[in-house]
């Protein structure tokens, strides 16, 4: 098998459909098309896919990472990993890790001060993956997901700004 990592082609409907199917089949949270469009159309450069070049074009997307990058409370630039999925049959090969690395590097180049994400408390594999890359569990969120599970919010600090409350970076509201 030959795997190819690449940015999403926003005009490619097949890629869009495959990403949606991949995520729908894997994540517990059901997302509307709006959520996909929110990420993909606003930050097309922050979605990466993995293609198994030996498969037909209509079903060759076997993994994806979907991110965004926004100014948080007008004080620090926060990258966010919204979804990360690898097809069941392709797991255990470091594909997820490669996708996360690619996305972080891209967000780092875009001057992000930190990268944030949420994951289910019960998803120990994902937690381990992120913690091994330097992410820190910052909060536990009670019954965060529709499946009633708690979540952890994790942050990877990239600059000193990530380590200062936004209140003291110029924002008037209290950062919790």
């Amino acid at each position, binding site marked *: 098998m030959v795997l190819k990592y690449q940015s999403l082609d926003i005009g490619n409907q097949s890629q869009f459909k495959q990403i949606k199917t991949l995520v729908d089949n894997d994540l517990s949270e059901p997302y509307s098309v709006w959520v996909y469009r929110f990420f993909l159309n606003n930050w097309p450069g922050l979605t990466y896919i993995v293609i198994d070049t030996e498969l037909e074009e209509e079903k060759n997307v076997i993994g994806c990472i979907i991110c965004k990058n926004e100014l948080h409370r007008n004080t620090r630039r926060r990258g966010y990993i919204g979804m990360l999925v690898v097809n069941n049959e392709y797991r255990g090969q470091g594909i997820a890790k490669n996708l996360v690395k690619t996305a972080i590097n891209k967000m780092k180049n875009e001057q992000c001060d930190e990268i944030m994400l949420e994951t289910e408390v019960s998803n120990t594999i994902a937690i381990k993956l992120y913690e091994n890359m330097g992410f820190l569990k910052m909060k536990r969120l009670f019954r965060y997901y529709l499946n009633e599970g708690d979540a*952890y919010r994790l942050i990877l600090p990239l600059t000193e700004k990530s380590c200062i409350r936004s209140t003291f970076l110029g924002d008037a509201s209290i950062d919790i």
Partner: protein
Amino acid sequence: MFKNYPNNDELIDVTDIFKNLGKNLKEPTIIKASYFDLFEGTRSLEVENARLDSTLIHLTEIEKNFNCNAIIGDENDLEVQLDNIISISDRLLRNVISWLNNYQTLPTTILSCTYVEHILLASEKSHKIEPLSTGNELYDKTLSGLCIGICYFGKFVLHLMKSGVLMEEEDLNFNFMGLDFLTFQESSKEVLELLEESLTYLDTLENGKKQYLKDFIRITICLVHIEETCTTYSTDLKFLNELAELGEKYNSIEVLTSDVPEGSFSMGIQKRMSNQYPPRKLVNVTNNYSGYKDMAMDIKRVLLIHEEKSALEMLQFSYYFGNLQQRHVLARGIFSLFFMRDNLTILGKYKMPDFVIMQLNEFSLTGCTSSIENLTPEQKLFLEPVLEEATKVLLEFYQNFTQNNCRIRQGYNRQLLLWDSLQAQFENAETLLEQNGVINVVSNEPVVTYFPYSLWAYFQKVTLMIDFVLKGFDLEIYQPYETFAMYYFVYYLTYKREYALRSVQQFIEKKIHSIQAMNKKIKKLKTVEKKEALKVQYKKLMETVMPSLQRNKQYLNFLTLRNTITKSLSLCQFVQFGVLKSYGIIDNHSSSISEFIDHELIHKLRFKSFSSIGVPELPTYEIFESTLKEFTLSEPNLDSKVSNTIGFVNKECTKTIESLDSILQAIKAGDNNGTMLTGSRLIKEDALKHYEQLKYSCQDIQKNIVTLTKKINVISERPLSEHFKVILKFSDNGSSFFPLLSLEDKTKID
């Protein structure tokens, strides 16, 4: 799908407009309202998506055509009808617990009952309670009464939600599907009458099964009465006791009757009514009647606060109620409204500003020159705005204990800043008072003065800092490598807290001595007038101030001992970490190799909450690093040094167990031993449990450090990090604030 769907003549065809506008759109354009953000998006629905479109729910013909005003089965067969109503009522009551105790949604529990939906719709239409009208009293009186009673109880739960006490979705789901939960019903009178009528009717039946229904109606009556805890602030426990008893009784009855009649519970409401949520399957609820007992017991516990005799008891009650375990969602909601009342009083007894002073008097303000009652109107002006601010901060502090477990820690984080700012404001006000001659003197040579208000705020802040860090262990936030930094920081904070406690203690001791010295002074005075005047003053102080000072002294004894316990346990934890580090099994940094890992930055992020706090100052990264080095042992004679460390940890734990025993004895004796005041009278059971858990933790640590070294000594090959992995282990009886640093064999894990 929509209740108020417009008529055809009110509809306009927008197809052409839509198509024309759409023509000009480019590929990446998203159309959305300005308020519609990602959060809204993740909760949005999608037509034709089976996971997000509730109109795609498949209903059977029976579900579709279910008639709530028709009798199911042979109407003349009492046995059949009793079975029908018992099974529906039983399922509905189990659904109430599934909703409240197991966090299921309203549409998959109470509103999944077709009779509930029918009654709510009919009642809303006629703006009055509309029971079923089948012509059979089992349906029209009993089932109707049960449904209506539960809906009325639902109305009370909605009130709790609307008052902002509970978090929608997180704490409770109240997706009411556009239905009106009897909001027109101003009191419970009519509902209770209906339920009583049902009981009277059931008494006329000659069938043993009627007892089930009578009990179910009694449960419903108890639920209806719960609102009185927040309307008339009733502390009558009669209905809560009955609810607990019935919950226990039915918990032991496995299966009551056959399955519910088809169509009586359905996903239909999700398809028919205004639904803003994705479709959800009905939950198969097993026997959960013990949930009623759990709920009743927690609400009963809340009402106990009414019996408080001091601000200290209120404080301790709230701490043990909220911080140690998550209480029933209704109990948390009721606590907030019962404690902080609509008439802006605490428990209907204390005005808010008085409440702040009461708390201050329990800690540091008694006998102070700067007590508010000793100040002139001009001097009061310095303090009053800060006391107003203190009221807000203190109320938020109490409110936080009613949050869910995760939110409590977030609340601590937010409050750190509030108490920090409050401390600064008090310091300014007290400096101004001092400049105006209002001085609390601790000693004359050298001159040491005392700021009771800012000292209180400082003590509260440091306590929150400690609680914030320790709660992180409870919520399993930290990785094992972070244990050193977190416990070292707690240890450091307990030193700072100790200093604050000592300052208060010094002042109190001095005050007690100065009052006692007045007696000698009286004897030395020569004129009778002066003697008499001093005698009057002495008597007044002995009667009013002295008992409070003695009380403060005893409370400080407790706080000091509690602080020492936290200090010792934290010390033992990071000393153990030092031992493991000495053998190279763990380090205070992540052992992973990643281009994104910056150890110092990660450390700073972990301590972000404290970075802005000036006093106590956050130790630098370098101090954390060098402290660990000090606690890391090395060759030569490593094993002997480790053996000494084991001895030290053992000793420290033994001392801590003794301290814990003193606190446990004081609690058990109801604070009557004269040396310590724990203020835990009203929440004795929970307080005892907390200190018992800490005691277990001490014993576990003693055993653990021996186990660790034994395991290490068995392996001769190095590095040991290839053999072992450190995990944080939560023991069954120990405290979750102090999990054990345990070793796991790596070959077993991988």
